[in-house]
């Protein structure tokens, strides 16, 4: 594999300036892309093997091929910059550190699918990213990389920087489109299964993640063969009980153990207990799974249902973590972020939250563990969208691997995890 490149320039202070970005090879991918036929651009991305980095891992080239080619049909490209999966912060890192890369990826992607308007749905709390992108868009406009007749190719594109307003739900692509249309961020009924059929304003729309489009800029600049030779890089957000939490660029398929080592190992030399390998929507894994590759295909194959790469956020827990408390916090998150549209999610997260509340307050009952499993079962495959479906995996995995911790809480009303400090 080659040197990391996605993060190569993010610490250069002037990387957000057009001149500096171009002096480091920036916008070469756009120039190459715009000199090609749109279909050839899509082919290039398809051949790179790039899969979407937002969580679902859908092949980007294939997604773009779903967009009808009819020039009479208005199409849109929408960037999901509403990063909010717990433990994930690589998109924010890219937008703050290398904003022109995203703009370049948007131009290439929009050109490939024939969109003349692109929207960045940016998380409201990302003030620094908003400033960086606002400046980058203005500079790209001034350089005629955006606007009318870009580089005299006859292609027009404008980028509109839109805003989120605080809703995890808006990370789901159809809920994001609802929000971008100025409504409550509630998911749309499927079919149609893809926004490529009916998306923003019911027009064909490609919804792409920030990191995905940054990959696209590199793929067009250097070619799919070079890109593949780099080992299909991915950004992993590492957080929790490690010495050096941070965003790490590694080849897809790097093991959890290697990632933890890269992050300096466990803090204070403590022992690894468990991790979420792909944000809180994935099941948790124990030390027996440390050599599992972080990969779209490998993780779902382990014998813990609901394990996935997701947004590639590895949240590491050491021996001092109380699993009952951790899963309770996870459930509370989904409960508070549930949009309320479907019953299993709206009610299930509240019921599970109530059971956790009494277990953690010394009022657990012996039948509670079966009750938790039962509610989780009722939520599996029944929720309207992935939000509710995200609750059972980690809950079930914790009941399997750390049942004794639940039982101790229920029997004694106390936590037996050494070194654990209960929530004040």
């Amino acid at each position, binding site marked *: 594999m080659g040197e990391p490149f996605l993060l190569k320039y993010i610490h250069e202070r002037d990387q957000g300036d057009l001149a500096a970005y171009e002096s480091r090879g920036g916008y070469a991918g756009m120039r190459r892309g715009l000199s090609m036929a749109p279909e050839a651009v899509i082919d290039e991305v398809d051949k790179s093997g790039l899969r979407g980095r937002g969580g679902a891992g859908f092949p980007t080239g294939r997604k773009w091929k779903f967009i009808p080619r009819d020039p009479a049909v208005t199409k849109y490209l929408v960037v999901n910059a509403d*990063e*909010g*999966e*717990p*433990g*994930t*912060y690589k*998109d*924010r890192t890219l937008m703050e550190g290398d904003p022109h890369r995203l703009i370049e990826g948007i131009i290439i992607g929009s050109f490939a699918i024939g969109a003349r*308007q692109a929207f960045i749905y940016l*998380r*409201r*709390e*990302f*003030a*620094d990213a908003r400033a960086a992108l606002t400046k980058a868009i203005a500079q790209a406009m001034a350089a005629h990389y955006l606007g009318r007749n870009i580089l005299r190719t006859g292609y027009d594109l404008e980028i*509109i920087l*839109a*805003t*989120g*307003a*605080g*809703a*995890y739900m808006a990370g789901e692509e159809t809920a994001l489109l609802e*929000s*971008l*249309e*100025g*409504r*409550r*961020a509630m998911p749309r009924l499927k079919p149609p299964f893809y926004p490529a059929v009916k998306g923003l*304003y019911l027009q064909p729309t490609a919804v792409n993640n920030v990191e995905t489009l940054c990959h696209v800029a590199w793929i067009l600049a250097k070619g799919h063969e070079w890109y593949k030779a780099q080992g299909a890089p991915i950004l992993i*957000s590492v*957080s*929790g*009980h490690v010495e050096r*939490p*941070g*965003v790490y660029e590694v080849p897809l398929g790097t093991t959890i153990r290697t990632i933890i080592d890269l992050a300096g190992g466990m803090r204070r030399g403590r022992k690894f207990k468990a991790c*979420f390998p792909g944000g*809180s929507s994935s099941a948790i894994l124990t030390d027996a799974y440390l050599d599992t590759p972080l990969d779209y295909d490998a993780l779902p194959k382990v014998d813990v249902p609901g394990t996935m790469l997701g947004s590639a*956020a590895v*949240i590491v*827990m050491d021996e001092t*973590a109380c699993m009952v*408390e*951790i899963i309770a*916090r*996870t459930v509370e*998150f989904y409960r*508070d*972020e549930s*949009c309320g549209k479907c019953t299993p999610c709206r009610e299930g997260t509240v019921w599970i939250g109530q059971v956790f509340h009494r277990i953690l307050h010394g009022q657990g009952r012996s039948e509670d563990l079966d009750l938790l499993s039962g509610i989780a079962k009722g939520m599996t495959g029944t929720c309207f969208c992935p939000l509710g479906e995200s609750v059972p995996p980690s809950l079930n995995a914790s009941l399997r691997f750390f049942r004794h911790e639940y039982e101790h809480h229920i029997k004694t009303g106390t936590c037996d995890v050494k070194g654990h*400090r209960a*929530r*004040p």
Partner: protein
Amino acid sequence: MTDGVRGPGSGVRGGSGLSESARAEIRRLIAQFPQRQSALLGALFVAQDEIGYLSPEAIRDVAEAMGLSDSEVTSVASFYHLYHFKPVGRRLIQVCTNLSCALMGCGRILKHLRDRLKIDVGQTTPDGRFTLKTAECLAACELAPMMLVGDERYGPLTLEKVDEVLAETKP
């Protein structure tokens, strides 16, 4: 109740309605989008930034500018965490309490803030300086435990660091 779409300059203006510059900014946002309602979330922030929260007058003025009913605007706004329906302090403190920050001790940070500010989560100090809130993952887990004060990120936090931040924050 609104009487539907009203033209600029019509209707009753309360003292706490939007200024002409805020209205102009909302018109600029509307012009960006193929459909005007897409500007709603941004327009609500324009109103909130000017007035401090979404007062009934602010909702009314946004609804008027957007060509929507007050109730529809309220319905949308109430879905999202970052709109305030009552006044907040001059500095909003959002303490992340999601997993990574929970693992790194956000509970102690939050308790310390409650003790120092003598308010509970969701409350504002009597001098109107700070409002304390909890937040879900703010996508800055390398700084855990962390908080936002206004737009500014702080972390990794210790109790001492929290005291420093409070002391250096403008009144």
